[in-house]
């Protein structure tokens, strides 16, 4: 049977079509103000080049921030369970999953079945969320993708960013700019701060190999390298880290439909 997962995140929405344990197709769009419409749009995009229509989908699980607002979903589940599930589908040996989402960051430990056995989410301080990096990218007038690369090309040494609050980090960055620090060094400092906070979360759930990084920020190479350095492990990163949640949802949909 064909199932689907829809992940309405705070920044981007993803939908994924899934058949006999294969990914048929998926779509990613920015989350608009109207999440019901967003859900329909992203679903249509995913369906588009499969020649399928919503009617052909046997079971749909929604997840993410807007999970309760997906009208056509049969069930909703949290991004935590779905990311564990999705990461487990990509890498069956995975035991620790780090999901760096837009509004929050989660460290998840799971068992051999991809079931969550322990998890922790970041508290109010935003360092460690996609939003944080987005704010910083805007402040430095850079694209999100460049941040990672540039942060590895430090000119002097990484600036120290003391503030863990997104808002104050922003003004701290502006102050550094005013003092004429090089962008790369500021970025390096940001990624350091980011990495140390995120690593704290990981060590709360007790990091175990294999370990997977999912979510948009997994594309930030500067951050990934630093995390690997601290963990002394190399991270598995899915070819498209943003769809892990939607995939997990689709896998759950499959399991639920088979019950």
């Amino acid at each position, binding site marked *: 049977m064909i199932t689907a997962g829809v992940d309405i995140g705070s920044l981007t929405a993803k939908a994924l079509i899934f058949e006999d344990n294969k990914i048929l197709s998926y779509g990613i769009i920015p989350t608009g103000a109207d999440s019901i419409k967003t859900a329909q749009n992203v679903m249509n995009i995913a369906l588009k080049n499969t020649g399928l229509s919503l009617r052909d989908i046997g079971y749909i699980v929604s997840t993410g921030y807007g999970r309760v607002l997906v009208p056509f979903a049969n069930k909703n589940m949290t991004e935590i369970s779905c990311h564990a599930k999705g990461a487990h589908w990509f890498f069956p040996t995975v035991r620790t999953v780090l999901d760096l989402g837009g509004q929050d960051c989660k460290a998840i430990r799971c068992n051999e079945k991809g079931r969550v056995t322990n998890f922790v989410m970041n508290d109010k301080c935003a360092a460690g969320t996609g939003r944080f990096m987005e704010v910083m990218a805007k402040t430095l007038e850079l694209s999100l993708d460049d941040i990672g690369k540039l942060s590895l090309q430090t000119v002097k040494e990484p600036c120290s960013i*003391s*503030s*863990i609050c997104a808002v*104050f980090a922003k003004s701290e960055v502006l*102050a550094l700019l005013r003092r004429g620090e090089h962008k790369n060094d500021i970025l390096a400092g940001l990624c350091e701060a980011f990495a140390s906070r995120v690593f*704290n979360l990981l*060590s*709360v759930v007790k990091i175990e190999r294999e370990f997977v990084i999912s979510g948009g920020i997994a594309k930030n190479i500067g951050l990934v390298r630093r995390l690997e350095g601290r963990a002394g492990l190399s991270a598995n990163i899915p070819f498209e880290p943003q769809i892990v949640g939607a995939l997990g949802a689709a896998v759950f949909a499959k399991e639920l439909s088979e019950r």
Partner: protein
Amino acid sequence: MAEEKPLVKRLKVNEEVNAAMTKYIAEGWRAKKEGEKICWTTGGGAPRELLYAMDIWCYLPEVQSAVTASDQVIVQYHMAAEKEGYSMDGVCPYARGNIGEIISGRPQGYPPGTGGGIPTPDILLAFKTFCGTLIYWWEALKRRLGVPLFVGDTMFYNRPIEDRDVSYYADSMRDCVSFLEKQTGKKLDPERLKEAQGLSGKVRELMNKILELNKNVPAPFDELDFMGTALAACWWRGCRKRPWNAVEFFEKALAEVEERVKNRIGALEDERFRLVFDSNPPWYKFNWLGDYLAQKGAIYVTSSFNRWWTGYNGFDYGWCMMGRDWSFEDIGRCNIPNWINDGIEERIKYMSRLVKDYRVDGAIFMDNRGCRILSYAMLDEAAYLERDLGIPTLLYEGSMADPRHFDEERVKVQLDTFLEMLEKKKKIKRGP
């Protein structure tokens, strides 16, 4: 430029105190190997004299955390504790630092030359003489280290101290003695305790003399700087062993200060503003703060903090004078009173006295997120000083031992503005 002005003239004796502390920690590790008893106890009214009288090595995790903070290494300990769930907002930064230090194990060679932090305890002794945190903290230490704990208790004196309070303390002292005798297998020699109480009383007397001398203009020493010496008092009061006999440090300090007074030497070349503070200083910015103020001719001449156990609200520290016959009740009478454990009214009275007696121009308090019991009356004190005494007051945000709550740039703006306010006020006073 302000920066070129000479900064604080510091007290020489402080170096000796620091050296002695390093030695005390190193010696403690050695003694522990040889089977001598190590005790972690609380600051304030805990009967340290009793420990010294029974030859127990006495360490203060509170002070240790202040030290790791001023050495700029405490945050890693905080994070270690926070990982286990000791909340950054909820748990006292001293406790977080101390527990985190135990969790993370001390990094090689830290603190420099101290043989790596304070020796691990065989005995835990907590006296609730001000904050409740002390009790929860020591209970947590007991669970973590599996070491016997004795808890002593005093009340919250938002009313005059009564005889029942004194005998309550005295009873817990007696109980404490038998606890310690059980732990050490030694009997307490009353003469030793009498001696220790005497030494302790002597320290109070000397400390009080020194603090009184800062009423001079210019002030002979910086109140922040004097904390270096005061450390000896809260650590080794009642200790007779050299080089940790606190009396000797304070005799030296007194001599040094009297000398300055005689020659009208101030801690600042050009003293322009006399300041008071309440609560704790930010230990990690300790010297920075003194010097930053000094650049602008401002100096802390007194504080509630250093006076916290010399007594200033009419309490007679003479109770513990050398040679006097003592009872546990007497010890209670001199260990219980403590402004930290006073109600708002008393605290305001206390601050007002300091302001008048020390001819204070302004009050700069750290709004201490790290300690609720120290800060709870601050806004009331500030309001009173401003409205009723016309003393400008500044509260800047910080924490005694968690640098993450301290934003240097913002603090600078507030200090600059405030000192400018004082400047204007002076001009107006002098008239055109």
